[in-house]
């Protein structure tokens, strides 16, 4: 197994983690909180898609679209009903709000979708190998990776070049000033929550076929998303994505070098050491608070 195969194997987790990370970062920048509910919202999206597929026989593509759209609306709903009214709560308090949402959804998912274990079908079951049979990867991973790359690229282009992106960046840097400049920060935060829900759902859709759909399936992805954010720096948009690419690759390389049981420990230690050397992450900037 060469380095190329390691990269190919890492592809699916790069896609999943970078999508999850993008949601976390968008919400962090606009609402100044780490969103623990990100994975739960995504899981609900996964459940919707699988239920539509298996119970009601909706075509796969349609079910994905419905799930993503529903979670977009759900994200906006959470912002409109809960987060918007908690603007004066401390950041830790806001974290607790998202934690409350996690518990709420943990209870609601079995009520709504039933207690059965479900298996989502893959996008495609073909496995592609090259001529000499040294490299192989599944079509599912490729589609997931391309999907993630396109979505992330689209969001980055929008952030850079559209008025919406400018508003998001302005809100991220200072909400009060952004408001004074005539930006409707309510819509900006609402849409950020919506997009976070949608990209999270996309991550769940890519991840779900690889495992079984359960309410806790995305928790490890979420934790790695947080690690990616810290590694890349919460204050930039590009940093966390870089972090999300580094983590799965590093994990697979460590696993390849023979330390399979120790790979998580090594990856977390590396993240810890990097953050110890650069406390604001690889791409983050230090914001000095005035007394």
């Amino acid at each position, binding site marked *: 197994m060469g380095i190329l195969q390691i990269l190919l194997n890492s592809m699916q987790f790069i896609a999943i983690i970078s999508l999850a990370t993008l949601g976390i970062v968008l919400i*962090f920048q606009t609402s100044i909180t*780490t969103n*623990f509910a990100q994975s739960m919202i995504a899981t609900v999206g996964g459940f919707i898609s699988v239920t539509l597929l298996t119970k009601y026989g909706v075509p796969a593509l349609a079910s994905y679209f419905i799930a993503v759209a529903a979670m977009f609306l759900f994200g906006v709903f959470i912002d409109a009903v*809960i987060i918007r*009214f*908690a603007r*004066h*709560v*401390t*950041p*830790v*308090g*806001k*974290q*607790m*709000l998202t*934690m*409350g*949402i*996690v*518990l*709420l*959804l*943990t*209870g*609601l998912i*079995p*009520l709504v979708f039933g207690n059965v274990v479900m298996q989502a079908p893959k996008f495609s079951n073909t496995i592609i190998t090259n001529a000499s049979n040294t490299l192989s990867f599944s079509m599912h991973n490729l589609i997931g990776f391309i999907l993630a790359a396109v979505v992330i690229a689209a969001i980055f282009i929008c952030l850079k070049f559209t008025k919406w992106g400018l508003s998001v960046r302005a809100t991220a840097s200072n909400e009060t000033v952004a408001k004074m400049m005539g930006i409707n920060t309510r819509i900006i935060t609402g849409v950020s929550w919506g997009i976070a829900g949608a990209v999270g759902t996309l991550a769940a859709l890519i991840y779900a076929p690889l495992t079984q759909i359960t309410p806790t399936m995305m*928790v490890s992805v979420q*934790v790695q998303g*947080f*690690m990616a*954010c*810290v590694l890349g720096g*919460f204050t930039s948009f590009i940093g966390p994505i870089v972090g999300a690419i580094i983590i799965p690759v590093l994990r697979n390389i460590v696993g390849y070098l023979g330390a399979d*049981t*120790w790979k*998580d*420990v090594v990856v*977390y*230690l590396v*993240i*810890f050491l990097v*953050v*110890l050397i650069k*406390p*604001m*992450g690889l791409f983050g900037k230090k914001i000095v*608070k005035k*007394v």
Partner: protein
Amino acid sequence: MGQSIALRIKRVLKHPLSSFVILGIVLLLVNVFYRAGIIQDIAFVRSVARVIIYSIVAMGFSLLLGYAGLASLGTSGLIGLGAFLIQLTYSQKGIPMVISILICLVIALVVGALIGFISLRIEGMYLAIITLCLSTILVELFRIGWGTDTFNLPRVQTFFGKEFPGYSSDGGLLVRDVMYYILVPLFVIVAMLTSNLMRSPTGRAMLAMKDSDSAAKAMGISVLKYRLIAFIIATVYAVFAGCLYMFYFRSTTYTDWGLALSLNILAAVIVGGSKSLLGCILGCFIIFGIDGMFLQNIPFFQNNTNFIYIISGALIIIVVMFYPGGLAHLWLDLKILIRKLKLKWRHYKYGD
């Protein structure tokens, strides 16, 4: 003469530490009532023990979050460290109970100091997630070192060379009773110590640090010293609670110590009120206790366990949104409300 005794009792009750003693007596009575047959369910007593153990963690956390203003998501890993160190020292190496707890506390001291030094460089949300990272490393080490099986600790047999009170080869439950009677006084002592610490110059210095590092530095407060103190105390409490957990519940696996437990403890502290010890205990009671103590006995919740999650989730959201100071303020607000109502009643009765 009778009045002077009443006055004396009143004075004792007004002492800030008396509330902990009363709480301790009530908690001791729980097990007495269970033995007397008034409380039928052993699950009730076990839930109370769980609340007590996690309250110790929450008190350290309250000092860390409410006073020093440092958020940590690594609590669960540290509790797990206590539990697994007991597994290593007491059960595998055969070191006596008290000494193995002391060893754990010394290790906790070192770990707490290390995290304290880290907190000087990494701040805010980064610190919270890096502590989560360290806790994940610890849990991974438990998994690698001890495997995925559930661990059972043997019953405590000896205590300072003598036979442990209540131990007999068949009556294991009595050992747990004695453990409970040890647990409660320890909990009260820890609560009193923490309460004193919060009102001492150390607590005040931490409060100053919480609002602004630079301002605190300008007032001559050593940020290094107080961050170290805050993290050492929080870590020692967490590891100590882990030891007690192991000696009371006597079984653990590495999956017990994930992110969910850290978040639950954070939730307990926030819901209860991060600056009040009684608030923290109340928060732990709500998050960890209500479920096992009451809801499990109601048939509706036995059939629909999901509603327990829904209720606690909704409760957290409602408290944080509408009662940001935490439930600790409830008592004070009720007092103010009663006083206002009394005043209104007087106006109504006697005119303005």
